[in-house]
């Protein structure tokens, strides 16, 4: 009698399909469109590209840089993450907040800030000159020094977050029990703590390596001729020489490198970890065994043990790192109030002239409006897609989510230069290039991963029994989503919207290709300014962008708190009765 069981409408699958469809059309479509050129005529251009010694040397350059900066970032981040993971309450929060503060500013603003900090007449040179340590200003921009310093600054927060997320789960009892078994603090650290943190180290390094592979903004602004990165080569080929076939072939090479790393990441760490999932731990056992060899460091380090074991030493190290995180802000904010025509730190006279100049410039105002509109549309698309996609992902069977999750996260990890070139070419064909809608659609795809991770984690955190309760009380699936799920995750939706807006508001690579005469965004203008001449005007814009994001963050925080306040008020009223 029950040969046919009626199934209710599978909303989850429909929604998840919608999200994947969006990405296929708006994100993967353009990339495929681009790669089509690379394979035209039997892939001759690909062979040509690989045969070029210039290409090969830049590829080697890029890989070397990525490897080196990954190791440097790890060395910088491990102590901070360790301290954050082993401390509690306010100390932990402060450490995390400060070390991730750069994440709240755009890549462009951060790079521009370092451009100013390290400039020939910038604060670092001024201070060194004043101290008499050097007699002539050092060249620190447009060479390897500036490139590495700013890259480090940009990558540390990501590494700290990945390391911390996993180190937090290391039970302090392990180290304690090693101590009771006769290990020195140093021995306990090397024998127990380090091996346990290896999974985090591996996934953090892979992630940073993948990001470094696609670096474009920082090397363009701060690097020297020897620091040319593969992304820059692609941009020049397409932008300056208009050689799409060659650009496509180069993109394919970079894409293959990134996908190989991504596959390795998926295999070793698992994409689940973006969703707060557990490590799959595959093949990490052997890595942990190798890391145990580090315990032999104990012997040569033993004489230094009293120094190494002093928490004070590490507090100093961590403090220096954290100050490093603040340097750009300490510099660009005062600089923007300077009255001088050129960089001067600290400014001798103060004024608002640069702000007045920007406020009076129709170019900047128009760009501001464009950026806000683009960011608003992008945030709306990214947040709604993420919300419905999260609902779908939660109900999806394992094999579906194993395929869907990497697809959704890909825009965060595939070098944006590849997508930008593809998006530009596709959009030109269908007339969306240089339009607000075109840029917004592309930005929404780029903002989707972060939004999705945030919202899906929140949705997963809601007890399924709560929705079941709503159903049993008479609410349909849609009603229960609207009346129960939506209000419960609404605070997270605000944060996600803010992040999406920020992603778009700061985005330069897509904007570089897609925005032109009609629609210039603020980053686009900043980029042009920073390439032409570094003067206080650009720092004023950077401060304004920073301020805009900060104000939005505060507003978001207030809106988020509002519901909590409402609850609190009820409590107060009742207790006063």
């Amino acid at each position: 009698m029950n040969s046919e069981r009626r199934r209710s409408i599978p909303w989850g699958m429909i929604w998840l399909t919608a999200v994947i469809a969006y990405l296929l059309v708006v994100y993967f479509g353009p990339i495929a469109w681009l790669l089509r050129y690379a394979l035209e005529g039997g892939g001759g251009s690909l062979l040509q590209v690989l045969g070029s010694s210039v290409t090969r040397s830049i590829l080697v350059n890029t890989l070397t840089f990525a490897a080196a900066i990954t190791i440097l970032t790890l060395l910088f981040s491990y102590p901070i993450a360790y301290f954050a993971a082993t401390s509690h309450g306010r100390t932990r929060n402060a450490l995390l907040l400060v070390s991730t503060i750069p994440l709240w500013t755009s890549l462009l603003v951060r790079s521009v800030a370092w451009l100013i900090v390290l400039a020939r007449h910038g604060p670092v040179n001024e201070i060194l000159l004043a101290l008499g340590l050097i007699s002539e200003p050092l060249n620190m921009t447009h060479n390897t020094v500036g490139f590495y310093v700013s890259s480090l600054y940009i990558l540390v927060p990501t590494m700290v977050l990945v390391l911390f997320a996993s180190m937090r789960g290391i039970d302090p009892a392990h180290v304690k029990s090693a101590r009771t078994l006769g290990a020195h603090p140093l021995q306990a650290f090397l024998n127990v703590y380090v091996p346990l943190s290896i999974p985090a180290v591996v996934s953090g390094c892979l992630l940073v390596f993948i990001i470094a592979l696609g670096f474009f903004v920082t090397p363009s602004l701060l690097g020297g001729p020897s620091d040319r990165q593969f992304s820059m080569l692609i941009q020049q080929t397409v932008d300056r020489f208009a050689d799409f076939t060659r650009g496509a072939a180069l993109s394919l090479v970079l894409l293959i490198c990134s996908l190989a790393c991504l596959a390795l990441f998926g295999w070793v760490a698992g994409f689940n970890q973006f969703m707060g999932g557990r490590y799959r731990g595959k093949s990490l056992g052997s890595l942990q065994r190798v890391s145990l060899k580090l315990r032999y460091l104990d012997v040569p380090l033993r004489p230094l043990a009293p120094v190494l074991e002093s928490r004070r030493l590490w507090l100093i190290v961590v403090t220096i790192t954290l100050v490093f995180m603040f340097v750009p802000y300490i510099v660009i904010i005062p600089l923007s109030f300077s009255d001088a025509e050129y960089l001067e730190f600290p400014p001798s006279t103060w004024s608002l002239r640069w702000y007045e100049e920007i406020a009076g410039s129709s170019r900047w105002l128009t760009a501001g409006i464009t950026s806000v509109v683009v960011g608003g549309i992008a945030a709306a698309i990214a947040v709604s897609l993420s919300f419905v996609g999260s609902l779908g992902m939660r109900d999806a069977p394992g094999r579906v989510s194993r395929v869907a999750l990497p697809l959704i996260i890909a825009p965060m990890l595939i070098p944006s230069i590849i997508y930008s070139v593809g998006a530009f070419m596709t959009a030109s064909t269908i007339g969306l290039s240089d339009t607000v809608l075109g840029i917004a659609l592309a930005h929404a795809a780029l903002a989707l991963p972060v939004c999705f991770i945030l919202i899906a984690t929140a949705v997963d955190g809601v007890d399924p029994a709560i929705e079941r309760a709503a159903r049993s009380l008479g609410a349909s699936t849609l009603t229960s989503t609207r009346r129960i799920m939506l209000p419960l995750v609404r605070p997270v939706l605000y944060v996600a919207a803010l992040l999406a807006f920020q992603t778009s508001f700061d985005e330069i690579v897509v904007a570089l290709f897609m925005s032109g005469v009609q629609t210039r965004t603020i980053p686009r203008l900043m980029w042009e300014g920073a390439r032409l001449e570094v003067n206080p005007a650009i720092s004023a814009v950077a401060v304004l962008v920073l301020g805009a994001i900060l104000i939005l963050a505060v507003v978001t925080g207030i809106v988020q708190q509002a519901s909590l306040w409402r609850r609190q008020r009820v409590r107060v009223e009742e207790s006063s009765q």
Partner: protein
Amino acid sequence: MPATENRLYARRQDPSAEELIAGADRTTASRLDIVNVTKRFRGTATPAVESLNLSVESGQFLVLLGASGSGKTTTLMMVAGFVQPDDGDIQLGSRSIVNVPPESRNIGVVFQNYALFPHMTVQENVRFPLQMRRVRHQDADRRVFSILEMVGLSGMARRYPHQLSGGQQQRVALARALVFRPSILLMDEPLGALDRQLRGRMQQEIREIHREVGATTLYVTHDQDEALTMADRVAVLREGRLEQMATPQNLFDRPKNRFVASFVGECNFLSARVEGNSSAGWDVDLDGYRGHCEGSGPEPSRPATLAIRPHVLRVSDEGHPGVAGAVIDTLFVGDSEEILVRLDQGESVTIRRVTGEAATRFPPGTRVTVSWSWRNALVL
């Protein structure tokens, strides 16, 4: 609300909702039949529920008792509509509901951790099912008020769930599941999160509320004391199958098999020999101690198991009729004590007796005789 909109609301009300309001104190309790239901989850070897047949009479309080993994929650979720049975039928008031979505089943569910909506006040939580049924405002207000009165929470209406104690949250969940006069009430280990003392009080309260509203109730628990205290009838589940369904008294006194006997209350099992059967019972011999007792289907002249509850056993000095053995230890359990005796035939038994009742103490090693009234023994 403007009058036009009011009319609109009234018109949109389905007859069942109208009926619900009319008989505010009348129950719409229905009979529940689970007919030959099987559910197998993908990737598991054994079915979660296998060929289950179960009926709950209208107004009855049935407890589903089983260890974790016995399929009791799966059964509950199938009745609620969150799990689709592979085979079989579920009928509510003799109408099949397997193809009815959860929101249309009119079933009240109290979830394990209550599943109160954290962003709604107590009042909003309880009003939610009435809103879903488009009950008119004034009627909804009245019913929310009276049900909160009944569970003793009328002062807490404007609190949020996190501002309530565990017991209060439990009562809100109950009120929310009852306010729309469901055809049947399902409860999934509702007292699991409460401490022992509170649990006892809530057991009584739930019984009282059940008596008051008379709802057909299906209650899931792994706690056998809770099952015996609360149920009109208890259904014992093991590995997805129904082991026995009986009144608490019968379940305790006449367990059908060894599993039920040991799961519901403590029990001693002794190997005995069945000599033959006479009028309504069996002649049993245990190491020379003979008697006549009831039981279910052993074969004569074959080894059988004798099940005897610890409180039925008596211990006395050596030489009395019974089975001989030596005391191993005596455990003090508050109002009673447990004497562990190793019988000469090799098996051990636990005897429970009220503390201080018998003056004789049996230090470890004392030779004793264990005996029992055959009326209270059972051969399996």
